[in-house]
């Protein structure tokens, strides 16, 4: 049973076909990258999986269960969490709160026992805190100690990205959808986040679906790469194989007029 199985999904906005009969399978423990030029429908794909949009047709199954038509929070309950391309953190709350909030849906105390602080609720709260610290410690000491109590708006951009990834992990999800985890990071930080994503899979046991523009990151960690263009899957396979695919090159750079010219597609950071 695949972790995530997308079959023949279509999505149109008015006259614009954003996703055309897309098939995608993600196995447990895989890191799959979705790449493609701007407007290729990568973020729409994420929105479809997480229930922000409802597909016009087709089926999306998570661990064998269809998640079409479910609300975003129900899909999180099942075990799919995401990060956002343009950072949607709870800006005025502290880092710790940001990582505690996604655990709320697992809480089984009523609001009344939360107000009365019953022992069961206290225990649960302690557990939530420990779980949050565990997820934050994936990023080394960067988000620990005093940073826990800082509001997100004082954090650097890279730290916000890290907090968002930690927040998605804290939902207790098995499948993480990371929307450009390295956007706005410098090369050093990108290298670090690459290692962390790999560790998330190896140590944390997460399955990861990733949208990314930085090709060196994609090439380094992806088990499989899926290329979208105008909502259609034009290539799928290992990184080396995909980037040499003439259709992919055409999608990124246009048709070659002169065969001698044209940049090497492996060049990192090109499709910005």
């Amino acid at each position: 049973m695949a972790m995530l199985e997308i079959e023949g999904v279509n999505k149109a906005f008015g006259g614009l076909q954003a996703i055309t009969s897309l098939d995608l399978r993600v196995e447990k423990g895989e890191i799959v990258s979705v790449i493609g030029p701007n407007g290729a429908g990568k973020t729409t794909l994420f929105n479809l999986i997480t229930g922000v949009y409802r597909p016009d047709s087709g089926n999306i199954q998570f661990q064998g269960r269809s998640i079409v038509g479910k609300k975003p929070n129900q899909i999180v309950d099942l075990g799919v969490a995401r990060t956002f391309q343009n950072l949607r953190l709870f800006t005025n709350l502290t880092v710790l709160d940001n990582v505690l909030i996604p655990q709320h849906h697992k809480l089984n105390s009523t609001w009344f026992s939360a107000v009365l602080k019953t022992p069961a609720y206290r225990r649960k709260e302690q557990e939530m805190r420990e779980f949050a610290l565990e997820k934050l410690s994936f990023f080394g000491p960067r988000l620990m100690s005093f940073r826990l109590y800082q509001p997100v708006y004082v954090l650097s951009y890279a730290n916000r990205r890290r907090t968002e990834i930690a927040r998605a992990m804290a939902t207790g999800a098995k499948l993480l959808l990371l929307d450009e985890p390295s956007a706005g990071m410098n090369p050093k930080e990108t290298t670090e986040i690459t290692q962390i994503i790999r560790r998330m899979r190896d140590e944390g046991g997460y399955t990861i679906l990733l949208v990314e523009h930085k090709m060196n990151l994609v090439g380094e960690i992806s088990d499989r790469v899926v290329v979208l263009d105008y909502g259609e899957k034009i290539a799928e396979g290992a990184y080396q194989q995909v980037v040499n695919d003439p259709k992919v090159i055409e999608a990124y750079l246009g048709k070659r007029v002169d065969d001698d010219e044209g940049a090497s597609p492996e060049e990192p950071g090109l499709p910005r």
Partner: protein
Amino acid sequence: MAADVGVKNKDARNTLLGFLGIAALVLVLLFVQSLATAEDPLRGVAKFNGALTLFAIWGIAAVSLNLINGTLGILSLGHHGFMLIGGYATGLLILSEDARNRILVSGRSTMTERTLGLSVHSWFESLGLDALTTDDTLWLRYLVAIVVGGLVAAFAGLIVGIPSLRLRGDYLAIVTFGFGEIIRLSASTRLFAPLTNGALGFPGVPQRFASDQLLWPFGLLALTVFVMAKLKYSSYGRAMEAIREDEIAAEAMGINLAYHKVLGFVIAAFFAGVAGGLWVSWLGGVRLDFFLFQLTFFFLVAISVGGTGSITGVLLGTALVVFIRQYGDPLEQSYAVSTWAQLVGVVFLIAAGAVIVYRSARRVRPRVHPVVYLLGTAALVAILLGLVAPSFDFWQETFRGFGMRAIFLSVLLIVIMIFRPSGIVGRSEFSWAWVFGERRDQPTEEERAQDAWLTNPELQRRLAGDEENLHSIDGDSKGES
């Protein structure tokens, strides 16, 4: 382990200090109450007592509104509607049998009409609350009435909360306002007249438990603050704050928007109903014009001026609003026009000065805004005219400052919104850690050094000398450029 012990000690200290603080407050209140029974020809203590009661009642309403406006981030303008429902319910339940009979007898009353096949009168008799008339048992009746009032209001909150599932922002604000007005406008119709006695309302609600004893209002205020504070710092409160910060992200993090929004509305409406019950008891009767939109506006001022989302701030804001309402009446009396002119002149001068100070502090150019010249000139002219006024007849006329307190509150709200939108205390709450200057979000010296090392690649390169990493960095930067 040492750190853990430190935390435990600090917790114990904070609890102790909290109890001491509350005990001190209670002692002060008891002291004031003992004064109120003594001779008081100028009614100073009575007035102060009234202000305290009003503070407690409005505090309950404002703190509960803060759950919707501050914690949940939904601008709700229908709080007077919840208070109305709670007020009418409580009022009906604590109305003594005599008072009820008097209303029924008075010919203009519509309360005799039957609805749903039974008269209101017999319905109340069947509740059996009339048996509770002695001093020993009356408190139980009050308690039942208050709780029922709260529950009825909470049910209204459930209904009003439902549109919040589909609407956002200012549209939702308008819908809550619409609900508040619908509640108020329908209470005067014949459909509800058997319960509300139309627009006239009914007098004779026992005043005792809201005015004589500060115990009831302050006890309930303490309960409200307790519930709201615990809720705010619980997982549920965090979820609500997440909704305030970013609804889409909150939903993507597994938070059930519908449940938490409606929960917020229901809890807030319950306490609004409680406040409404105390409010009618304090006023000694129920009338439609006790529940104007004005009330919600006052709470809105209290919340916005004090600090949106901060219970401490809201209480502070309520104190300010109540102070202006109770002690601002000199502003609304008649004075000679020249006096008013001088007053306006002084206010303009202060405003001009404030603008200059503000702009200097923020280093905005030009320091002296053109408007300041205008204000200053107008102020000087007004003051001069006030000085030469004895020579002119019309300056001797008196002028009554009708509505001056409300004007003051509105101007205050506008100024706060422009210059300090988060309110006086902002989002922060009172805490002993803050009193003792203990901040957890500041790094220690050691941590600061570590942090500098982490965030400065130059430093890290020199210290670690990680050749491989260096290489990839160079490659990357070439690729990016």
